[in-house]
């Protein structure tokens, strides 16, 4: 790791000030599990780390609050282990708690934070090898010419081919979660879905975070009767990244879908909402045929690269199985 200086502010405002004072050269240290690895590999080289672990009293970002009316307010520094262990979350949004509880391994879950998970950088092996987020060389993508078995099949018209890494984000987006961002200009609350963006040039970030802006809080409404299901295709039982995930949330009325959210992970540079599947499902009764059709629609626009054709199938199966899981039709699996 390159040398850096280190600050441990006590208030959120101090944290924002410290970050804004050195735009582009300071990084937020939360759990550190992703940031330190990136720094050791020289992929990011901040000159300053601003630790959020010293925030005091009302400024702390490690909290989980629940009200029946508004649901959850979860501080960005709440760990994945906290989420997995939260009794109230397990009752209200079991799928979220379960997703957090099977991410990575226990050592990561004990330190990795909700904010860090949502803002982690892509696992793309070109990015991690130091070829840049877009991995372009002489105007051409190394990913397209190279080994893209883990790369995007959707939203990959370029120049970004990496896949969004967070396994939590798709399920939270399906549940219409919002995030609170605090920056030098104050606080703003945006749908989590809007946190993610396609970088169009090297140096652009895949998150909508302004200079000095930090993610402080996740807001997640009550379950409100939604039927929720997820499916993760992962090769290993032990510590591994998903190859494809899908999360669905269905608002039902008289046995029919009133509103559907279908969000895929690890298949596109950002969490991928399938509007085609969502509108198809609206008004339908869910059975196997409907799940099949929705899954087909979800990958209809997929454009596999040279080595990741199989991911189209994985994404399709993930959507189908998430739908069946949400509606209790997955008994044969």
């Amino acid at each position, binding site marked *: 790791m390159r040398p850096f200086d280190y600050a441990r502010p006590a208030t959120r405002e101090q944290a924002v000030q410290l970050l804004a004072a050195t735009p582009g050269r300071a990084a937020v240290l939360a759990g550190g599990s992703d940031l330190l690895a990136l720094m050791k590999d020289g992929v990011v080289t901040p000159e300053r780390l601003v630790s959020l672990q010293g925030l005091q009293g009302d400024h702390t970002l490690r909290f989980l609050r629940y009200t029946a009316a508004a649901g959850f307010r979860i501080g960005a520094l709440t760990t994945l282990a906290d989420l997995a262990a939260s009794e109230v979350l397990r009752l209200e949004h079991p799928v979220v708690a379960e997703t957090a509880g099977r991410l990575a391994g226990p050592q990561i879950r004990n330190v990795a934070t909700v904010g860090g998970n949502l803002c982690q950088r892509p696992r793309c092996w070109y990015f*991690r090898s130091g070829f840049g987020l877009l991995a372009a*060389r002489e105007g051409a993508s190394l990913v397209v010419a190279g080994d893209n078995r883990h790369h995007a099949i959707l939203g990959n018209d370029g120049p970004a081919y990496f896949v969004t890494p967070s396994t939590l984000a798709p399920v939270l987006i399906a549940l219409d979660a919002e995030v609170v961002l605090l920056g030098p200009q104050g606080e703003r609350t945006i749908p989590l879905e809007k946190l993610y963006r396609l970088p169009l040039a090297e140096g652009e970030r895949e998150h909508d975070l302004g200079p000095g802006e930090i993610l402080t809080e996740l807001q997640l409404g009550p379950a409100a009767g939604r039927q929720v299901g997820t499916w993760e295709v992962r*090769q290993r039982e032990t510590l591994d990244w998903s190859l494809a995930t899908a999360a669905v949330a269905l608002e039902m009325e008289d046995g029919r879908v009133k509103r559907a959210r279908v969000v895929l992970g690890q298949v596109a540079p950002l969490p991928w909402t399938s509007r085609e599947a969502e509108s198809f499902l609206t008004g339908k009764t869910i059975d196997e045929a409907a799940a099949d059709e929705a899954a087909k629609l979800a990958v209809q626009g997929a454009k596999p690269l040279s080595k990741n054709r199989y991911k189209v199938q994985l994404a399709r199966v993930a959507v189908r199985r998430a739908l069946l899981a949400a509606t209790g039709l997955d008994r044969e699996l």
Partner: protein
Amino acid sequence: MVETSWPKAEARRLLGTRVSRLDGPAKVTGTAKYTYDVARPGMLHARLVHCPHAHARITKLDVSAAQASPGVKAVRVIQGVGAEIQWAHDEIVLVAAATGEEAEDAARAVVVEYEVLAHHVDDLHLDQAPETRAEEEELAGEPEKAMAEAAVRSKGTYGLPVIAHNCLEPHGQVCEWNAAKDTLTAHCSTQAVAALAPQFAERVGLPAGNVHVICQYMGGGFGSKFSADRWGIECAEISRQAGGVPVKLMLDRRAELTIAGDRPSAYAEIEVGAQADGTLTAWISKSWGSGGLGGSGRPPLPYVFQIPHRRSVHHSIPTHTASSRAWRAPNHPQGCYLSMSALDDLAARLGMDPLAFVRKNEALLGPLAKTYLEELEIADRLMGWSARWKPRGGGKGPVVRGLGLSLHMWGGSGHRSSCEVTLQPDGSVEAKIATQDIGTGTRTVLAIVIAETLGLPLEEVRVQIGDSRYPASGGSGGSTTVGGVSAAARRAAVNALRMVFDKAAPALGTTPDLLEAVDGSIRVQGEPGRALTWRQAAALFGRAPVTATGGNPAPSGSGELELTGSGAGGVQMAEVDVDRETGVVKIRKMVAVQDCGLVVDLKTAESQVYGALIMGISSALAEEKVLDPVTGTLLNADFESYKMAGIGDIGELVVHLMTGPGYDERGVIGLGEPPVISPAAAIGNAVANALGVRVPLLPFTPQRVLDALESPGRGIV
């Protein structure tokens, strides 16, 4: 009379029992000091500068900023301007500084410029290789004629990619040059303590006796740690350059995965033919692969089955990657996977149960045929094969189940080794031998053999290894260590006991041939009353210690029986679940039945088989070095993307060692390698059985499985 040969079954106290490894407590408490843990007073920390290109020429090199960097004590240029670099991550410059952080900063300050040259890293496409080296063709009988006459033929392509050793303790050393005495002390993570000293000596220009190599504990080698390595020599030189200060250089993970050891790839087109009853008649194969710039090893094809009419040719493709190193059972996992896949496909075409197919071809199994047949019977029972096997394919629902089997063989005879056993006047016993424990339990094996021989409790024997100044012993490769060290230790202990008997006989009023060593005493056979305690017997030598030595092999003409044997056979069966919608393969169960001659320590012997199964499972499910075609660099040079099996990925494992009459009398045979040969083949056959479709290319990732399901018969490219 003390017999050199191994004691008969009824006389064994410790041999073949379950003994916990003696250094287990040191390892499990974190007190065992590995090379990486060595700290010497004033020690410097070194870091390498690596080349980022797969093929390049150095056009500019400036180390002045590095030399001026804080804390830096020495900088060495390993390859200078004009040097042609042949693989990515090759070593260019070494810096040593007071702390690791300072050495890192200095390494970053080194300026190197390159002219990038064309590279070739593709080993899968034989027709696209700019250069190939064909090995001599192997031919027996008339393969083309036999193939034409075969009632049933099967043709396919199969392959295994390059995988890494990925030792948990990286390669590295702490070197300490003593300028006044002109000596070098090197703490090395090595599989060859004795052989490393002369390697260092030759390269740094010292008499071999002036180099002292120490390795008390080492964190895995698997065949990649037999060399002093260029970085090791450079570490010694930078210690000399820094004025004789100790210097530690351990590779980081990226280097460990990129340049410190590979298993060559192997791909093959194979056609195999049989009579309608399943009798194998013909084999024709063309195989290729790469082990880096140095080419590749040649997989034994066909493996195990000596098919009467056969032709095989192998091509080696040089690539711009670091040269391969011996990887646990070199060439055999490749030969096994390629052969067993092709034979399983033929059995499927014949409509035969693979177990019946193997039995049908008993005559082709060579000298180990009897062993294989006995093992198959046991494996059948442990797996429930005959009761549950069904033809390929079928099954309802997305998850389908399958069974597969494989056979393998290995040598495993003991290497050259010498051991000394010293008896002190107080009765204490110490053995010294310049061997090493690579995780197999070498200390424990030595203590068992010596304690068994001397009639002492295990804890009365102190074993010293891991030091090149002890009596020489071979490197730990080829599963040769257990045979070599146990034979040498047996002979040394027998010689020591003979000396004790010669002294004790007059004191007990008898002759040496009537004595025995039992329960810590020397006594007249059959007369427990006429005995000396071990300590009393030792005191008969006066106040000086006595040392006896023993070696392997026995001196020629000694007329001694061999204590170590060669030729071990094994059978493995796998049961898998495959999700045919996602391509995820899960191991349900594996059975390994293995022959290894006389077992010294059943507990650590079984651990070798469990470990080999797990390493084999890992290679079957997950492992593969992924090289970027454009840049020629390794894309998965970390633990996250160089995937290995974890504790939840291995299923149920059942291990059975063949022991007893027919096996024990063959002597001690090494076990580290044979059981790692078959797992991928057995798993591959189980996957084919489950799916009804061959997945030809390892590892069995969702990508490979779904690609094979989408276009069955497409082969490996």
